């Protein structure tokens, strides 16, 4: 998007009205402010250009800015939806002092096209307040002087408290500092006094940066390009060892992995594999890469490898040892992984029981990699066929149940009929196959041998169908 000239604002819909979410200096200069209704803003400034705000991407941008800001301090935390808080204790002398550090920060952000306001103060509360009201640096030991001219709302008190304070004539922080604490706490709650103490340094408040989520990616850069299959496998083995150690320390297992190979001509190829269950065993994962590495065109050689676990799942430490069960379940998972990588994980299936009386929905075909085997509960009621197929019409069927009929070009005569078993459609699902109403199922044993599962629909007279075959 091109930079906006003139007044520009991002709008956000909350409740059922659009509000200004964020605005540029030109717009602020015209008297607009954040949180103002869009209709009011348009009345003040008719040529205001707006775009809807994307809060998710904004949070993402702030998170990446936080990673960048760690060049100034070891501990940087996200502070609200639009701020960063860094603990720069012991850092400023590396940049030549606090003022130089702040200038450096602003210069770099300016170059990136970001307007930022910042403040440096001895406490988190004071820095927060000052950054949102002009910015600047509060010298050591002069906290009260530095923030006393700011409005009370800068202290992170809620809107109701702020309004109550302004109603009694307390507008600036200086007014609060002079007052006795006990009546203040009794009247406006302990939150206000706590915020004031935090801003003035009487109560500690750490920066509390959340730890970075572990990144499961490793890379290997080579001085000389490689092209042999065995060399790539050897490089992959080194990467896998490191990646699996990382996974083990975070108690995670990889579910999908991607190996990226960079050729000397800057071409990139990648190999993706999936695993039938979370895993971090280098040897077993390497076996799955073998086929993909075979197919790679090395060109003039490969000079960088990068391996990342794109999907991970928690995987606790497990008992390893000589148990045959453990060994077998590992081998089965390996088999399912290699099958899934060739034919697709949605084609490696498992039968799971389901609670429905409708024959087609009495079981689920679930991907085996993402389900555990379940034992069907003991079923009562009429026997079910062991093979099911979509209903196929039978011809020349007369009588209920039919005495003889033709199916798949065979003339069949009924020897014995067991039934009917009436199954009604599930009204909460609109299944096109069941629009003919309820069905009467019969087990028909024929003189010719086949034992079939026939049904007819008494409500619509649509004839007879075969849906399954018994043993």
């Amino acid at each position, binding site marked *: 998007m091109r930079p906006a000239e003139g007044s520009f604002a991002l709008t956000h819909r909350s409740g059922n009205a659009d509000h200004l979410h964020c605005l540029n200096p030109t717009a602020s200069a015209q008297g607009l402010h954040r949180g103002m209704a869009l209709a009011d803003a348009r009345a003040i400034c008719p040529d205001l250009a707006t775009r809807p705000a994307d809060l998710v991407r904004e949070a993402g941008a702030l998170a990446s800015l936080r990673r960048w800001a760690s060049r100034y301090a070891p501990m940087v935390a996200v502070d609200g939806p639009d701020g960063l808080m860094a603990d720069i204790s012991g850092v400023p002398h590396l940049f030549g002092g606090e003022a130089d550090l702040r200038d450096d920060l602003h210069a770099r952000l300016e170059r990136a096209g970001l307007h930022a306001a910042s403040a440096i103060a001895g406490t988190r509360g004071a820095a927060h307040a000052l950054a949102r009201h002009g910015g600047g640096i509060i010298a050591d030991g002069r906290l009260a002087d530095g923030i006393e001219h700011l409005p009370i709302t800068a202290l992170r008190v809620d809107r109701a408290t702020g309004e109550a304070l302004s109603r009694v004539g307390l507008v600036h922080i200086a007014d609060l500092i002079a007052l006795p604490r006990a009546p203040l706490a009794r009247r406006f709650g302990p939150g206000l006094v706590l915020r004031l103490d935090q801003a003035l340094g009487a109560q500690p408040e750490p920066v509390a940066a959340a730890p970075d989520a572990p990144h499961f990616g490793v890379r290997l850069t080579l001085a000389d390009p490689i092209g042999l299959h065995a060399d790539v496998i050897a490089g992959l083995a080194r990467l896998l060892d490191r990646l699996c150690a990382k996974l083990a320390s975070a108690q995670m297992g990889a579910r999908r992995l991607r190996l990226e190979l960079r050729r000397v001509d800057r071409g990139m190829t990648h190999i993706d594999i999936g695993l039938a269950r979370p895993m971090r065993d280098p040897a077993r994962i390497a076996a799955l890469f073998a086929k993909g590495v075979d197919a790679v065109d090395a060109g003039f050689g490969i000079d960088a490898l990068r391996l990342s676990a794109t999907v991970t799942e928690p995987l606790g430490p497990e008992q390893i040892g000589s148990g045959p069960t453990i060994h077998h379940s590992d081998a089965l998972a390996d088999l399912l992984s290699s099958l899934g990588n060739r034919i697709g994980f949605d084609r490696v*299936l498992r039968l799971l029981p389901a609670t429905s009386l409708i*024959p087609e929905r009495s*079981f689920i*075909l679930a991907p085996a990699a993402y389900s555990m085997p379940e034992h069907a509960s003991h079923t009562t009621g009429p026997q079910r066929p062991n093979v099911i197929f979509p209903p196929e019409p039978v011809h020349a069927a007369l009588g209920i149940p039919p005495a003889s009929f033709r199916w798949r070009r065979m003339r069949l005569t009924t020897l014995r009929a067991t039934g009917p078993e009436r199954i009604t459609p599930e009204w909460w699902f609109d299944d096109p196959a069941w629009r003919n109403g309820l069905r009467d199922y019969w087990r028909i044993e024929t003189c010719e041998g086949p034992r079939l599962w026939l049904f007819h629909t008494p409500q619509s007279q649509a004839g007879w169908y075969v849906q399954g075959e018994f043993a």
Partner: protein
Amino acid sequence: MKIPEPLNLRPHRMHEAEGRGRRSFALFQAAQLSGPLVWILPAHAPELPMLPGLPQDVGARLHILRPTSEADLLWCTEECLRAAPVSLVIAEPSNPLSLTAGRRLQLAAEAGRTTGLMLILAGAGSNASETRWQCEPIAGTSDSTLHSWALNKNKSGTIASWDVNWNGTSAAVHMVSETGKRCQPADAPR
């Protein structure tokens, strides 16, 4: 009850079953064995095993593969036969196996010490298979579920035919004794 010896498939070999009752035969064999089972059927095949109708504990051990092409189906079969933990691989190829494919599957079964059972169309047998069974359901009395399982080809034994009574849910099977010839009409019981 002890499983009748002649109906057991020879382990670590590839076998074939044809006829209308081949899926029942496969499920019977699956119920005899313990351990994971794999059933490979083409993605376009309409027939699916129905979980509530399968023999006890077969459903939880069964894995179903639905490859789209015949080459993938044979690849899956070979891969499963080579894998040690699988006890029985059931596959439904749509075309007759070529000599090479049949031999490869037989070698894979030996290498992986896994039993394979191909459910083939009539007359689509392979030379390499260890045994070939012709399976047909047959009509019987109301308390029986009769099957005729005929061994048509046997590389290491004699061929024979059995009529058995298997109800499709248990692992037990009863041999049906051969019909005796009666010389006189039976009298009504008094």
